[in-house]
């Protein structure tokens, strides 16, 4: 009851009875909903062996693995580039010199306001029109880097700013130089506090690679559609997408749990002076999505 305790008192006999009735009623409702979905699946033959047979073939399994590899490759390259991009522009925004601060602020704010798909289209349609050959992988990676890099820049900036100002003052007072203050005092504390937010942004990045589907980059979702569109197996779109969804949910779920665990772990060590940035929400960017 820890969650609900804000709104409700400890239940007395009447409330207990009412909650029990509500519990039974809602359980029945949820089971009925699931049963209806199950019925609909069975009714349209989604459980037929023919529709699932493909997944036993090693060629189809290799196809899925190939799609997963393409997804992870795009996510991996984009993650490294986005972290670099974020670091560069965060340091630009934190600079004392307006000549560095102003352009960095402009870039970060601009790329966060443009839909990611439009950024990917810049890398896809423009070269296509002029006949330059650019790999679809790079169109996807560049879009992901610009968008997620800008969001990460904001996370980095929030993390550095979350270190209490006394730390900086103390460091200057004992005679450290500017880069020493940043390197020895601020970063070690900030990185610990930012880690959960960074990991959950990387989950967002991994999910966003699915946009590669729209520019026909052969990632997991694209492979899922190919497997689903095979007539000899009765167009098994439903099984194919369920399998793909299970893969995504497993990988992203594992990373989300890592972020949550990091947040718990950071929260309990009192050594960090900086406030831990929550995994799902950072300042104005709380509940970020694609």
């Amino acid at each position, binding site marked *: *009851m820890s969650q*609900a*305790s*804000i*709104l*409700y*008192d400890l*239940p007395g006999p009447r*409330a207990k009875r009412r*909650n029990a009735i*509500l*519990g039974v009623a*809602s359980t029945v409702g*949820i089971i009925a909903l699931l049963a209806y979905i199950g019925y*609909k*699946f069975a009714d*349209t033959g*989604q459980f037929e062996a023919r529709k699932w047979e493909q997944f036993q073939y090693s060629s189809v399994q290799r196809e899925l693995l190939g799609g997963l590899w393409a997804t992870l490759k795009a996510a991996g390259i984009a993650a490294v580039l986005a972290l670099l991009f974020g670091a560069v522009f965060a340091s630009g925004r934190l600079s004392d010199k307006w000549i560095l601060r102003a352009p960095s602020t402009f870039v970060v704010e601009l790329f966060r*306001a*443009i*839909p*990611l*798909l*439009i950024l990917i*289209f*810049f890398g896809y*349609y*423009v070269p*296509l*029109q002029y006949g330059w050959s650019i790999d679809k992988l790079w169109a996807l990676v560049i879009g992901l880097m610009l968008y997620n890099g800008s969001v990460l820049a904001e996370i980095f900036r929030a993390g550095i700013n979350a270190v209490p100002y006394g730390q900086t003052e103390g460091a200057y007072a004992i005679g450290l130089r500017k880069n020493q203050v940043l390197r020895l005092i601020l970063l070690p504390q900030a990185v610990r506090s930012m880690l959960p937010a960074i990991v959950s942004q990387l*989950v967002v990045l991994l*999910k*966003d*690679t*699915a*946009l590669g*589907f*729209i520019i026909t980059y052969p990632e997991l*979702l694209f492979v*899922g559609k190919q497997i*689903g569109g095979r007539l000899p197996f009765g*167009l098994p*779109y*439903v099984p*194919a*997408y369920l399998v*793909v*969804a299970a893969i*995504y*949910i497993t990988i992203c*779920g594992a990373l*989300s749990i890592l972020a949550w665990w990091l947040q718990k772990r950071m929260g309990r060590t009192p050594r960090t002076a900086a406030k831990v940035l929550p995994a*799902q*929400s950072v300042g*104005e960017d*709380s*509940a*970020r*999505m*694609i």
Partner: protein
Amino acid sequence: MGEFFRVLTDNGQLFVDGFTNTVKLFLIAAVGSLVLGTLLGAMRVSPVPALRAFGATYVNLVRNTPLTLVFAFLVFAVPKLDVNIDYFPSAAIALTVYTSAFVCEVIRSGVNTVAAGQAEAARALGMTFGQVLTLIVLPQALRAMVPPMMSVFIAMLKNTTIAAGFSVLEAGAIPAYMAERGEPQFAVLLWITIGFLILILPLVALQRFLERKWRVAR
């Protein structure tokens, strides 16, 4: 430069249609996800364990699924279940299903920001559940909810572009049409960017204003 403006004037109707559909999609999905998300949020803070578990499962499954996959499932897989939905409603449903998970989280964490002592004190004064909720908890929780809720909707407005990959003519689908007409894509994409900036920047400004105003009051 002349060509840059010509792209807009020659294809004005396409841009108008595209952005009208984007706004329409956004408004429908915003209302839908606010309703569904509030329902899920209420489930997650309810005293009934079965409802809490259902809400938590929904949020965790949907949040770890790419939105593109939700779209693809609705457009390609759902017709195989003998449920036929048109492209535009499919896009609205996909956005609603996905966004309501985030709305639910905003509501849950907003309610959780209210100190337990507030509700306890209200009950000690003899207030009923309805009074505690409407007079004590919600006025405080709403302040904490509005800025993140606006982020969710700004993100959703940007997400409407994904519908372009699933046969809906909205702003994100304009480049594909322009590719057929052979217009310079860089100019086209810049105009789309400008369109989105016009839609999004006022929302961002409002959000920052509210955040600053209410942070002080807390």
